[in-house]
């Protein structure tokens, strides 16, 4: 009964591109999307670089075809989800097509977010603090995590199943995992799964209180790393089970072969020194896929650039792989840390690696955390026979999730 789960569509919007193709091209050119803050209104604009989507809300609204007040998270999420559905051949104009070859498909949307409409709420608050009757209510209507997803679902016309996960930086990996589980259980035929997060003052200042923001361009997985740069964006996959795959007739090359969610149970924000949560997540994903560590050809690391994450993650990797390391890199140096979106975006980058047999380099590496030659990818690398890619997403609250993507 364990049916396969295929990736039928992908949508990406991030600092390195407003669609999937642009993201791929920038990765190939090894160019960063991180720079000084242009769009978010913050006192720290000159201080902390960030990976912003290169568009203001007006432009994003035009892209989405939306009017009215909308959270940037909703806009980004809709744009990416729609692109993913378009690739899967499931869009009819601006709405999802539920009937394929005369059969009605049950379609679900599983989004994830950490800030949701906080980009609006934080601008509502000054007036509200002055006077409890102050501020425009439309500015807080999308505050709740679920409200962001609801807005996207309503725009797409999805009603069969709508859900939102919020487990910090592992959120969209968990959304993809739940999507795969619901497909296998036969509860749904198609799932759009991923995550979206806009850059906000709330998160920028929050990470600043933790003193883990790099004032320069971040150097994740380098021994001289100084912290992370925040980013924003959205990444969604269209996942299909066998029935929908047959109906849609697509030649899907990548499948979700394994996944696991484990908790580090060490500290509210910091990863454990022995990387227990990440170790269990990676190990679980491999076990589900029924493959051995040496079959993994590449890891898309969580690799945020903080001292703590990169050291804990590399220790966990050593625990899983011994000294037979697969090639690995982190794409946070391109996009910044996109929080709830990173699992979705990096799932798409993992698909790129599998389909194009390309490994994208870590940026700005001088002394890689793992020194064995060739392990940390430092320039664009063409490979042969890459079959399995592991993608890691770890978050606050000890939430650790790993996804395993395999070529068919």
């Amino acid at each position, binding site marked *: 009964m364990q049916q396969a789960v295929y990736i039928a569509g992908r949508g990406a919007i991030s600092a390195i591109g407003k669609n999937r193709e642009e993201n791929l091209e920038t990765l190939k050119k090894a160019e960063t999307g991180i720079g000084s803050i242009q769009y978010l209104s913050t006192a720290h604009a000159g201080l902390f670089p960030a990976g912003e989507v290169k568009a203001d809300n007006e432009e994003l609204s035009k892209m989405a075809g939306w009017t009215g007040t909308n959270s940037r998270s909703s806009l980004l999420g809709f744009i990416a989800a729609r692109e993913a559905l378009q690739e899967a051949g499931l869009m009819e104009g601006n709405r999802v097509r539920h009937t394929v070859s005369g059969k009605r498909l049950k379609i679900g949307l599983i989004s994830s977010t950490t800030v949701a409409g906080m980009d609006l709420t934080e601008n509502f608050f000054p007036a509200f603090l002055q006077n409890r009757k102050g501020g425009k209510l439309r500015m807080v209507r999308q505050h709740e995590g679920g409200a962001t997803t609801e807005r996207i679902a309503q725009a797409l016309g999805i009603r069969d199943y709508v859900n939102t996960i919020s487990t910090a930086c592992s959120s969209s990996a968990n959304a993809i995992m739940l999507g795969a589980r619901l497909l296998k259980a036969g509860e749904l035929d198609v799932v759009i799964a991923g995550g979206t997060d806009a850059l906000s003052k709330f998160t920028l200042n929050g990470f600043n*209180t*933790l*003193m883990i923001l790099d004032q320069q361009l971040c150097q994740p997985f380098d021994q001289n790393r100084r912290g992370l740069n925040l980013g924003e964006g959205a990444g969604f996959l269209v996942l299909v089970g066998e029935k929908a795959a047959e109906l849609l007739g697509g030649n899907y090359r990548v499948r979700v072969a394994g996944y696991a969610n484990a908790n580090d149970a060490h*500290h*509210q*924000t*910091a990863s454990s020194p022995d990387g227990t949560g990440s170790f269990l997540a990676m190990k679980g994903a491999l076990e589900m896929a029924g493959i051995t560590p040496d079959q993994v050809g590449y890891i898309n690391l969580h690799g945020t650039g903080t001292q703590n994450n990169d050291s804990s993650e590399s220790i966990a990797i050593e625990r899983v792989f011994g000294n037979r390391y697969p090639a690995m890199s982190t794409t946070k140096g391109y996009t910044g840390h996109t929080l709830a979106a990173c699992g979705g975006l990096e799932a798409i980058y993992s698909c790129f690696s599998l389909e194009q047999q390309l490994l994208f380099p870590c940026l700005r590496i001088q002394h890689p955390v793992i020194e064995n030659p060739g392990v940390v990818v430092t320039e664009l690398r063409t490979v042969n026979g890459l079959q399995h890619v592991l993608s890691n997403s770890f978050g606050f609250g000890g939430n650790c999730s790993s996804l395993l993507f395999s070529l068919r």
Partner: protein
Amino acid sequence: MNREQLVEELKQQIIEQLNLQVQPADIVASDPLFNEGLGLDSIDALELIVLMQQKYRIKLANAEDGPKIFQSVDTMADFILANQTPQAG
């Protein structure tokens, strides 16, 4: 303010900032604040960095300096006395 007053003030401020369920008299100025002592952790260290900035106008550029400075109330007081810029007026 003399050193003794500073130590008492610090105890009160630490309790307030960290919402500790103890009285100032329960804190021995020379006892370790972290781990076995009051059981403070890395989040508390970050809170104390802000406390230093807010109350004493001392900015720690590097979170890693925390453990040394925040060893005990005594070490905090010493650090403040050595680094405090005289207040205007």
